[in-house]
């Protein structure tokens, strides 16, 4: 198990380095001139050159790259050229909002997708199976902004049950961050009123974000369960008298969870990098909005920072998935 773990971590490290290189290259081939942006719209040639020197953009590329690496190693993501703010500080503010949204969406996807997948497999070709199939197909096909607007219309405008935007009401002072995840922080400080408020804000965007994820987990889990239930070891377990519940929930589901886990890992990365539509519809102050507004302004440091954070997150998710694979599958542990 240890060797397996170390190999996976080593691989993740290599991928991270690749990602760092990639963000650097992309920021250098981007058509906009960051020095001109920094100097402002009315700047003359000499002011632009001054800005270029200030930001170290006049140095040879290898030197810039080295500096980028050392800064990153010190946790310094650089400064936004447009606002002058530290990208690290911005990320610390926006990333938890996105992370909280993605975690909740993933929780919904797994907690509903896996049981519904099992149920549809057990009721294969029955009404429940057809119902979940229609649900899953529409879950993948519905455009998120359209679905988001629909939910806002239903739950906020018509029913008046839930707010439409933000993480908290504009009148609520955000608490000092502990983890930055409002649901967690409010529970840690025992502030249940705040918890309710945060939950009422996050629930609609989380549903919208989770729907495609839920749908694909459901479909994969269903077909893997159908497959697993046909396997010889299930026949043997029945012959030996293992209880039906245990056959389904342990003997078959454990096997079906291996491919499902792969989808969960992929969907995690997908959600991290595609929150922007949901963040736009629900005015959610996350890294998606931050990255897009920076990109539109030609401000490349925030974009690099977001790319790195998302990539790092993706790698950690993959690492966790790989570890869970090792936990589930004894054949992997040996190597």
């Amino acid at each position, binding site marked *: 198990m240890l060797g397996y773990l170390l190999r996976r971590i080593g691989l993740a490290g290599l991928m991270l380095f690749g990602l760092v290189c990639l963000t650097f290259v992309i920021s250098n081939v981007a058509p906009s001139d960051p020095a001109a942006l920094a100097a402002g719209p009315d700047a003359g040639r000499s002011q632009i050159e001054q800005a270029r020197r200030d930001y170290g953009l006049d140095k040879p590329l290898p030197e810039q790259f080295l500096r980028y690496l050392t800064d990153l190693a010190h946790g310094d993501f650089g400064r936004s050229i447009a606002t002058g703010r530290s990208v690290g500080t911005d990320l610390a503010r926006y990333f938890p909002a996105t992370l909280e949204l993605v975690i909740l969406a993933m929780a919904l996807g797994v907690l509903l997708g896996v049981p519904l997948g099992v149920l549809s497999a057990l009721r294969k070709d029955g009404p429940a199976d057809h119902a979940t199939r229609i649900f899953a197909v529409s879950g993948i096909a519905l455009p998120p902004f359209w679905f988001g607007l629909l939910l806002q219309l239903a739950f906020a405008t018509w029913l008046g049950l839930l707010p439409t935007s933000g993480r908290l009401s504009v009148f609520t002072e955000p608490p000092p961050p502990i983890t930055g995840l409002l649901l967690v922080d409010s529970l840690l400080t025992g502030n249940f009123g705040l918890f309710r408020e945060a939950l009422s804000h996050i629930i609609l965007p989380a549903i919208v974000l989770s729907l495609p994820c839920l749908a694909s987990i459901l479909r994969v889990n269903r077909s893997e369960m159908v497959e697993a239930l*046909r*396997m*010889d*070891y299930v*026949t*043997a*377990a*029945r*012959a*030996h*008298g*293992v*209880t*039906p519940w*245990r056959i389904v929930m*342990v*003997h078959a589901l*454990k*096997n079906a969870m291996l491919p499902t886990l792969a989808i969960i890992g992929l969907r995690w990365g997908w959600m991290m990098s595609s929150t922007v539509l949901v963040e736009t519809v629900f005015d959610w102050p996350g890294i998606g909005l931050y990255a897009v507004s920076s990109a539109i302004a030609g401000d490349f440091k925030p974009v690099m920072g977001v790319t790195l954070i998302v990539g790092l997150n993706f790698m950690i998710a993959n690492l966790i998935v790989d570890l869970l694979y090792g936990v*589930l*599958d*004894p*054949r992997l542990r*040996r190597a």
Partner: protein
Amino acid sequence: MTALLEIADYRLAFDTFDGTAQVLDGIDLTLEAGGTLGIVGETGCGKSVLARSLMALNPMPPARVVSGQIRFRGSDILGMSDREMRRLRGRAISMVFQDPASYLNPLLAIGTQMEDAIRGQDAAVGERQRPRAAARARAAELLAAVGLPEPARLLDSHPHQLSGGMRQRVLIAMALAGDPVLLVADEPTTALDVTVQAQVLALIARLVAERGLALMLITHDLGVVAAACARVAVMYAGTVVEEAATADLLSRPLHPYARGLIAAVPDLDHPERRPQGIAGSIPSLITPPRGCRFHPRCPVATERCRSEKPLRREILPGRSIACHHATP
């Protein structure tokens, strides 16, 4: 006294995409308590489907019972609910499978699989499931009974860490968990290395003798039948064509198919005689031949064979044959 197992006019069809396959076409077999019956026949003749029928393990659908009864201790298992059937599985009837690699769950430790079986059998008869530790102790006992060393260590290992022979022993141990009276073994040695085949067969024979089990042993190896079974039934395309004492059948097969099957075995005493196989291959079970299902391949078929299905009749005491032209 009723026999332990009585199969009467049992017909099972599979509704497949290409049509309905009449896989078992009127099986009649009887097995007394403690009796040993071998089932032989070419691949695809329905041996495994028959074996699975005894434990209601065929997937329904596509499988569908067309007619007949399978009476175990007098009660028809075809009419049993799933709950009733579960009382029998492992506790009265047990099964050993062909490929021990695929019949063990690759992700679960041997101990977990055995404990689940033992505790599931408790639940099936409405008892409180015994604690895992007790089930584990029982599992270790069973592993020792099939001659596996270091049971405690084995319980913590996973199937991929075991050799084929060990895996089959584990499956045999699991089959014994509920002290069954009937053991159904479906080609238990086919997937094993030649060197361990004899050992596993000897193990089964020993357990059957020690525990007084009835045995239904499916194989396409006549040598295995000769070693382990008092009686033998020859199957062809979903029918039993001859049933006899093993020694009688091997020395003087009467049904043309049985004759062909035995002629296909190389004669070790007369190596100069070439084994004579049976020309042709097994027929489609979706559109089986009319009359005798064997007639397209039968060297002595007549017009009657093409139109009229031969019923199995006793032509000598303890010996029955389904053929229009068989004589004692």
